[in-house]
């Protein structure tokens, strides 16, 4: 436990110290939300099981998912930076288990992702997003937090897995971009996934972020594609799988 906390603490000190990066990384998701959300809201409304809503309310949970996805997968990249700048050796020769290192890193990345996403959520209510789901405000926040936690842990684990297999930062960016954009686009963040062509529906069904966005969308609007239990089961399973994968692959890092 102590080791996990130490690793987490370092990640958090670095995060707090990079304040300008924190602010700039809020700008992209907010632009998506304001421009796409307001643009389409003026002419469209979306329905699904659970009623219908304004497009900006529909989009907001997707943007939360996107924030968690980007922040956490790229925080897995910090393994890469540690390797590049030599600090990883300091961690690797310490009497600390590899699993503690992975869990500490994952918790650090997830904490950062959650802070980012909650800031986005708070700012989005200022531009008209309303939390009107059946769970009420407290219930909605609780469901969003739980979903974000497992989603974040899962994607940091994925980031660490990729970083463990690669030699340099350039390679990581290629792989991450090849993965991150399709995961984001095929998560139902922008559009309902109920009446998609079959080939696309299959890809969405295989995408863990789709379940994460679905759960958060239920919390915000009441709309959902899958059952909430399925959503939570998938994000939890994803978290377990990626943590194990990350720990196994990280063990071979030199």
């Amino acid at each position, binding site marked *: 436990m102590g080791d996990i906390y130490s690793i987490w603490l370092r990640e958090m000190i670095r995060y707090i110290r990079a304040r300008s990066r924190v602010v700039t990384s809020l700008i992209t998701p907010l632009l998506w939300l304001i421009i796409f959300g307001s643009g389409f809201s003026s002419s469209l409304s979306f329905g699904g099981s659970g009623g219908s809503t304004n497009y900006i309310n529909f989009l907001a949970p997707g943007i939360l998912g996107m924030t968690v996805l980007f922040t956490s997968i790229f925080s897995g990249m910090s393994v890469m930076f540690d390797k590049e*700048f030599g600090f990883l050796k300091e961690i690797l020769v310490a009497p600390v288990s590899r699993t503690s290192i992975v869990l500490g890193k994952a918790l650090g990345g997830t904490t950062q992702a959650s802070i980012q996403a909650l800031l986005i959520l708070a700012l989005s209510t200022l531009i008209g997003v309303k939390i009107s789901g059946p769970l009420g405000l407290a219930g909605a926040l609780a469901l969003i937090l739980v979903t974000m936690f497992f989603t974040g842990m899962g994607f940091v684990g994925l980031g660490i897995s990729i970083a463990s297999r690669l030699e340099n930062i350039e390679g990581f960016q290629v792989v991450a971009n090849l993965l991150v954009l399709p995961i984001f686009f095929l998560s139902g963040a922008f559009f309902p996934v109920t009446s998609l062509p079959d080939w696309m529906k299959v890809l969405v069904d295989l995408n863990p972020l789709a379940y994460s966005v679905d759960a958060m969308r239920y919390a915000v609007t009441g709309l959902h594609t899958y059952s909430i239990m399925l959503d939570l089961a998938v994000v939890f399973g994803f978290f377990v799988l990626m943590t194990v994968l990350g720990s196994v692959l990280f063990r071979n890092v030199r």
Partner: protein
Amino acid sequence: MKAIETKDLVKRFEDVEAVKGINLEIEEGELFGLLGPNGAGKTTTISMLCTIVRPTSGSATIYGHDVRKESDTVRGLIGIVFQDPSLDDNLTGRENLDFHGRLYKVPRGEIAGRINDVLELVELSDKADVIVKKYSGGMKRRLEIARGLLHHPKVLFLDEPTLGLDPQTRRHIWEYIGRLNREKQITMILTTHYMDEADQLCDRIAIVDHGKIVAMDTPDNLKHDVGGDVVIMTVPNGGEQLKAKLEQLEVVKSTQLVDSTLRLSVDKGETAIPIFMDVARQEGIAVPSISLHEPTLEDIFIKYTGREIRAQEAAGGFAGHGPGRR
């Protein structure tokens, strides 16, 4: 019990045998140097002792603990100052030390005091709360040494501790290392390709070349081995011929010719030089310069390897310091 003991330690990387059977016995409190050119296998050797690299065969123990089977115990006993920087630039000096203390389970009640102690030791107390990014190269090195000592290791490994530092900072770091070794009785192993570093600091030296130890003794004994004085003659042409002639003289104990530099070990340099000049004149070989000095480790290195360490360094420079290795 020996602080460090290795038996026939071997490391093979795919097709290269980097370390070809190293045998060491290092006593508690000793300051031991591994001296050799880049690529000789020094870093690989200490990486095995530090549990970072797994030996292909042979054994190594730190205070009786096997580096392979008891790597966690070994990690708690040792401190390491890596060749390449390994600090978190975005943390302050104090935060770097605090993180290290946590990982090495330094009791929380003691940590603040110990951090202040080691910072004072390397004279960084006033920079403790500055972000490491703003440190100079020498300050970073000193912080790394401080960090290596924080958890009170029994053995401290220093891999090229003064690589890339200016002469003044190097001497400063030598002072710290020497003082720590004397005052705290910490066993230290350092690798270096600087002759003067090994000479100044180490109780004993092992000269490593192509993955093997070619000589091991105290610097004085090694130098004594070469004996007397060393005469260095510059011979642009006819070096081989002159070498052959001089070798027949009784006063000459050994000779080495590297490019146009001829080195001769003699008992009394002052009396040998006029004789050498006479021979050169008889043979009609021009000797633009001649000098006399007491033997240095450089001479010993040449004696055992037939090469100058600096020439090696120039040839291996790119592989050793390219960005790919960092």
